[in-house]
């Protein structure tokens, strides 16, 4: 048995061993666990005592459920604060330039490092969950609660903690200075709060026995499988992005991300298609299409931050066979390839929505054009802003901004595009309507995607045509201006000449 355990110990990811040891050694974790247990105990005693004092003769048949709601609320809150924060903070410190030893010197791959951290976080979460077991058992012994309900809620909580931790790992992987890191941490904290609060609201409804959560129906379990699938899909996407972010810039770090994105898009498409056929209307596919457009738009933003040349490490892995190269170009690290990948993916998602509406006609046919329009406008605006940012960086701010920071220029341009119309309106015009603009002034807001998409939803045909015309012109101009940059990358996407040939020369 000892030999087996020793062999098992050898097989475990070293990062898991290190992280677990650190957690066990950590005074912070020990203190947190003790405080957590004390809080659980005190709250439980207060709830029971309060109930007994207020209604001593009342026979409460839901006492166990109420108690469980409180206990799991504390558990979820505690885990959502401690585990993602600790895991993210540790990765952020190990990623800094002064601590290169753990992440960059050893022979561990970035994927092994992150999966180890995620696994260790999962193990720590299990430890905290198990520490909470006596309180859960006590709640179960009281009335109004069954074991499947407890398991469903705890599984949802555990998945939320894992999702939160993956998100924290992603934020910690973003290369940033201290100020930006604090901002990212704040953003992460807000995300955790939303995730935790949302899950608490849902689990309260579930525990209360709402008719939307009927565990005896197939719909509940199918929906559950769908949610779990989306959660794991999102975690995988965040994980892949994180791996790419901590991989050396010289590596072909976009490859795994793009393959995963494409795989998720295809598998998700099948899943949503089955769901769509099952419910008999095309809306689930619209969700898939819109999510696809959002992810591929994000891909475009990432792509313009990539390098426009290949280092020796990537170059020597470019396929020698010419017919493989166009496909490889879309999947290998590089700005132009990433941009093309994003554009093709977003276009396929938008087209996918339209095609599905033709295959499975909607009972609410008016939604078709709106959803397809939103699916087209989001990536179209992203494309225009990204290419404009790439152009601005190369022409005006090359010395100020490295390619990796092109997203900042895109963000600034987006901010200007959104706010300048309002400033112009308030400074020179005197019209007012619900969103701060009136229909006759809509063209003024054409650089503001939020306004124009909102307008598209409200079926303003004139502004839609104008918006599309504007985007075609804008997109055409920036595409033409960036064409030499793009073509240069396409033509340079070739493997280096073999060493022997060089020697012969």
């Amino acid at each position, binding site marked *: 048995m000892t030999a087996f355990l020793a062999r098992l110990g050898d097989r475990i990811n070293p990062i898991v061993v290190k992280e677990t040891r650190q957690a066990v*050694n950590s005074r912070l974790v020990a203190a947190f666990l003790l405080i957590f247990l004390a809080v659980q105990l005190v709250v439980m005693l207060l709830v029971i005592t309060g109930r007994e004092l207020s209604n001593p003769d009342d026979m409460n048949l839901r006492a166990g459920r109420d108690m469980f709601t409180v206990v799991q609320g504390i558990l979820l809150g505690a885990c959502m604060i401690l585990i993602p924060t600790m895991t993210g903070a540790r990765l952020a*410190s190990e990623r800094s330039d002064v601590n*290169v030893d753990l992440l960059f010197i050893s022979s561990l791959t970035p994927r092994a490092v992150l999966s180890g951290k995620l696994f260790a976080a999962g193990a720590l979460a299990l430890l905290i969950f198990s520490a909470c077991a006596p309180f859960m058992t006590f709640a179960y012994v009281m009335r109004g609660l069954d074991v499947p309900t407890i398991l469903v809620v705890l599984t949802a909580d555990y998945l939320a903690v894992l999702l939160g931790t993956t998100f924290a790992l992603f934020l910690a992987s973003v290369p940033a200075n201290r100020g930006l890191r604090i901002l990212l941490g704040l953003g992460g904290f807000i995300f955790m709060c939303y995730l935790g609060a949302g899950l608490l609201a849902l689990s309260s409804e579930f525990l209360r026995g709402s008719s939307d959560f009927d565990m005896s129906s197939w719909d509940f379990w199918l929906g559950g499988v769908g949610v779990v699938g989306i959660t794991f899909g999102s975690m995988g996407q965040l994980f892949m992005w994180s791996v790419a972010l901590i991989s050396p810039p010289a590596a072909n770090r976009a490859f795994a991300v793009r393959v995963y994105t494409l795989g998720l898009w295809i598998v998700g498409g099948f899943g949503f298609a089955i769901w769509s056929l099952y419910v008999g209307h095309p809306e689930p596919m619209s969700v898939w299409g819109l999510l696809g457009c959002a992810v591929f738009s994000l891909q475009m933003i990432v792509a313009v931050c990539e390098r426009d040349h290949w280092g020796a*490490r990537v170059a020597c892995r470019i396929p020698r066979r010419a017919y493989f190269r166009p496909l490889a170009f879309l999947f290998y690290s590089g700005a132009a390839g990433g941009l093309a990948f994003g554009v093709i993916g977003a276009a396929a998602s938008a087209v996918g929505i339209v095609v599905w509406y033709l295959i499975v006609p909607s009972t609410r046919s008016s939604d078709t054009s709106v959803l397809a329009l939103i699916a087209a406008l989001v990536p179209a605006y992203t494309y225009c802003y990204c290419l404009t940012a790439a152009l601005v960086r190369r022409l005006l701010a090359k010395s100020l901004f490295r390619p990796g920071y092109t997203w900042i220029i895109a963000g600034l341009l987006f901010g200007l595009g959104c706010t300048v119309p309002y400033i112009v309106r308030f400074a020179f015009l005197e019209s007012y309507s619900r969103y701060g603009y009136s229909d006759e002034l809509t063209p003024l807001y054409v650089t503001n995607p939020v306004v124009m998409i909102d307008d598209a939803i409200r079926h303003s045909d004139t502004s839609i045509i104008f918006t599309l015309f504007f985007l075609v012109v804008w997109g055409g101009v920036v595409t033409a201006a960036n064409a030499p940059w793009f073509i240069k990358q396409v033509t340079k996407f070739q493997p280096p000449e073999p060493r022997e040939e060089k020697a012969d020369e």
Partner: protein
Amino acid sequence: MEVEIQNLRKEYGNTRAVNGISFSFGSGQIFGFIGPNGAGKSTTMRVLATLEEPTSGNATIDGVSVIENPEKAHKYIGYVPDSLPSHRDVTVHEYLDFFARAYNIRGEKRRQTVEGVEEFTNLLGIRDKTLNALSKGMKNRVSIARALVHDPPVLLMDEPAAGLDPRARIELRELLKVLAGQGKAILISSHILSELAEICTGAVIIERGKILRAGTLQEILSRGGKNKHGKAHRTVVLRPLDRIDELLTTLLETPGVEDARIADGSVEADVTGDDEACCALLETIIRAGYRILEYRPRRADLEQIFLDVTRGDVQ
């Protein structure tokens, strides 16, 4: 095992941190990497350690390119960075055990390896202390132990002696000698040139990303230094039987002698030119009737050569 750096360049924007340097060193050699701050030493080290991608050029270890195949090259390299390990809640033993696991050393072999490295680097007494509780010298030792865990044939050490007390420096020196004796190829950057001169078999002097001198220590020292006008010069020591003051005056009036001074009953003279010029000077002195008991050229030390060849420019 041969480490070869070929025409390596690294640019950060408009700054050329490393400007086309080439040199090589091999098993059993300790190569000193010398240069003022900002010369490009750490950048070169980081490229060799696969932490940075060069703008152009290549570096190979036993034929394996650290740029094209960094995963394979990792196994050959033990890198001691200029920053020390400072991770929370990890003991020395756990830290080394983690790296042994990371290098896929398993079971009993891992235990033996970690204990062996702890013993070799004199860490057995502090193996259960957390990294944060260690002094700089101890952390430095841990860093070296970590670099040795997978028994790499090449060691890259970036300022390992910085901030160490005299005892720790002596211990480090001895450790390096033992490691070189084991056949490891060592590249070490340091500002303490006198210490480097004692242990190095070769040196590379670098400034503003360019190599000024490179070769075995013998080659570098025998080439001597340069005067402030950039011309080669030698220092010779003459011990006359008598008339030392007259000899000093004569030397100061002799063409080709830049400077002369009396030290320990001898006269030291800085002569412009190479060994030929030194012979000519001796001939002149003897012809002038001085009786010379001893005449020897004084070899420039590494420190003098460093001062002579570098200008202290930063970029």
